[in-house]
């Protein structure tokens, strides 16, 4: 029933929660729906060049946002990589909302809704505090993203883990968060239920890991590279990011520990409880489960380290003689080091990623690879940050042969981004 309402329901659900909040008794001064401060935005002006294979954006197997020309030589691209307009209404002291509409040149439709949620967060009366959120949002997994437009803080390109979170781990859900402090230790627990993330696993299986900053939207489709002859008849040539196909809600939970020391640790578990076989227009319900472990630490005054480790499994299709159509384990990890230099920062990141196909040799989803990245962020003023970034990536994926592309690929990418926030 709910499915027929289309993508507008994301907005509808969030707004109905919002008006619920607005209906609560609130002093007039706390309400701020349409002042200048209730609006924010981000514009990303990008100049990029890359060599190597064709990017997945154009239907290739390339793992970066940009790729080389037909012969694999450097190709230059200038684009407005992102325009985000954000509405942050404050319904009362405890009830707020966020609606994020973005135009990304690679996405169709564009502009489209990217986030839409309401937050209930009363002012704490003691060390115990709680909050809740409902709508279309990313669960808290990424240690790299922040800000109202879910931008990457210190680099242009997020890690393989968080690029995938940006693509296939956004949910239409509701979550509750509780937090307490015991002798300087802070423990936080978040649990959520969600729908509309049944296709999660599709890109990871058919394209593999990737490193880019394109965010999934409410109604978008990501292109898939050339599928194996075995899968071509079963799976559509693209994947819808937000679909509920089997009418089973998924869930996730997150535990965080902040000791009285300059580090924090968290553990996250996700299960979309997909049945693996429900299908509409060749968009399948995948059964995807994963763990994510995160650690952040400060060394001295200026050096920040963060790291995530993710591993999981995704299953799709009916049982066959060789098992399910897709049954794949996936894992990735990164280490990011950022050093503050005045108001600027320099970052280095190493990513490792792997997938292991457990079934059907007719459709090979194996891959392994790594990437190294260096970035510099220069703060020009309150509204302007200039990023420069270099990425090198190497990967081996036998499935590239379905698109007549050699399995082993190396690639380099250079980017400059002027990020304007207002």
């Amino acid at each position, binding site marked *: 029933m709910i499915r027929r309402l289309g993508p507008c329901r994301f907005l509808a659900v969030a707004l109905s929660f919002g008006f619920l909040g607005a209906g609560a008794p609130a002093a007039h001064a706390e309400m701020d729906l349409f002042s200048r*401060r209730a609006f924010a935005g981000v514009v990303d002006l990008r100049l990029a060049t890359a060599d190597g294979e064709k990017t997945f954006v154009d239907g290739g197997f390339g793992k970066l946002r940009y790729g080389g020309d037909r012969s694999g030589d450097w190709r230059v691209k200038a684009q407005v990589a992102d325009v985000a307009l954000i509405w942050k209404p404050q319904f009362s*002291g405890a009830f707020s909302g966020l609606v994020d509409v973005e135009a990304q040149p690679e996405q169709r439709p564009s502009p489209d809704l990217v986030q839409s949620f309401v937050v209930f967060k009363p*002012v704490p009366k003691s060390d115990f505090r709680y909050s809740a959120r409902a709508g279309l949002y990313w669960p808290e997994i990424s240690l790299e993203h922040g800000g109202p437009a879910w931008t990457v*803080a210190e680099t242009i390109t997020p890690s393989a883990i968080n690029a995938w979170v940006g693509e296939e781990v956004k949910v239409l859900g509701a979550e509750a968060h509780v937090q307490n402090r015991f002798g300087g230790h802070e423990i936080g627990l978040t649990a959520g239920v969600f729908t509309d993330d049944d296709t999660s696993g599709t890109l990871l299986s058919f394209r593999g890991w990737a490193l880019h900053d394109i965010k999934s939207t409410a109604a978008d489709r990501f292109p898939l590279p050339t599928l194996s002859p075995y899968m071509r008849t079963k799976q559509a040539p693209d994947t819808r990011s937000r679909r509920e196909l089997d009418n089973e809600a998924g869930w996730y939970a997150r535990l965080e520990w902040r000791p*009285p020391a*300059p580090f924090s640790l968290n553990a996250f578990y996700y299960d979309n409880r997909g049945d693996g076989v429900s299908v509409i227009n060749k968009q399948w319900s995948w059964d995807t489960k994963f763990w994510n472990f995160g650690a952040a630490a400060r060394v001295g005054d200026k050096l920040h380290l963060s790291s995530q480790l993710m591993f999981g499994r995704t299953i799709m299709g009916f049982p066959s003689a060789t098992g399910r159509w897709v049954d794949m384990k996936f894992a990735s990890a990164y280490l990011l080091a950022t050093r503050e230099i005045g108001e600027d920062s320099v970052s280095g990141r190493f990513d490792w990623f792997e997938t292991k196909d457990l079934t059907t040799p007719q459709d090979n989803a194996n891959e392994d690879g790594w990437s190294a990245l260096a970035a510099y962020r220069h703060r020009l003023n309150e509204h302007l940050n200039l990023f420069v970034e270099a990425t090198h990536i190497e990967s081996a994926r036998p499935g590239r042969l379905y698109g007549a592309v050699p399995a082993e690929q190396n690639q380099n990418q250079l980017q400059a981004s002027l990020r304007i926030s207002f």
Partner: protein
Amino acid sequence: MKAQLAILSAIALLVALSPGARAADLTVSVRTAAGKPVADAVIMVYPQAGGAPRPSGTYRMTQHHMMFDPFVMVAPVGAEVSFPNLDTVRHHVYSFSPTKPFELKLYAKGEAPSVKMDKAGIVALGCNIHDAMVAFIRVVDTAYAAKTDAQGKATIHDLPGGVASLRVWHPYSKAKAGETARAINLARDGAAAEGFTLELRAAPEMKHY
């Protein structure tokens, strides 16, 4: 002439002998066990002779670049502390400390709501919008209080001589209630020095975006 000199001498002697008439300066330096200077430690001296605080001047706890400034503020009982927002974003400052629970609901750049600190103690500050924003106000009921600088030093001027209680507080001190105390005996004039070694727990790691 001689009589006048005698009277003047007597007055001078009386002034010199009366408690508090001549003042001492006390410099306290605070370090960690490893010898690193400890900034933002609040030094409080309670002379037996007393000395209630006199709130004067302005007490500003600004919010800038999504941080409170200063991180630690010393304010006398009765001080009116203002909270100017210098950011373009709204802040929602609160404290649930028993010393002064309050809430300054969502206010914008240019606004500077204020709160009267009517009781001595610790007021831990937070912002309901930005969880990483943390600061402390130490409300003191003595006229003789100061906060250590980056060198870990603070000097309190014009202290009356005699026995006094010297207390040192730091938000991250591992001591009970964050406070270390000792009795001192101050000479009537001149300069005195005291040293403290504090064991601090590390500041928590905050999201840096």
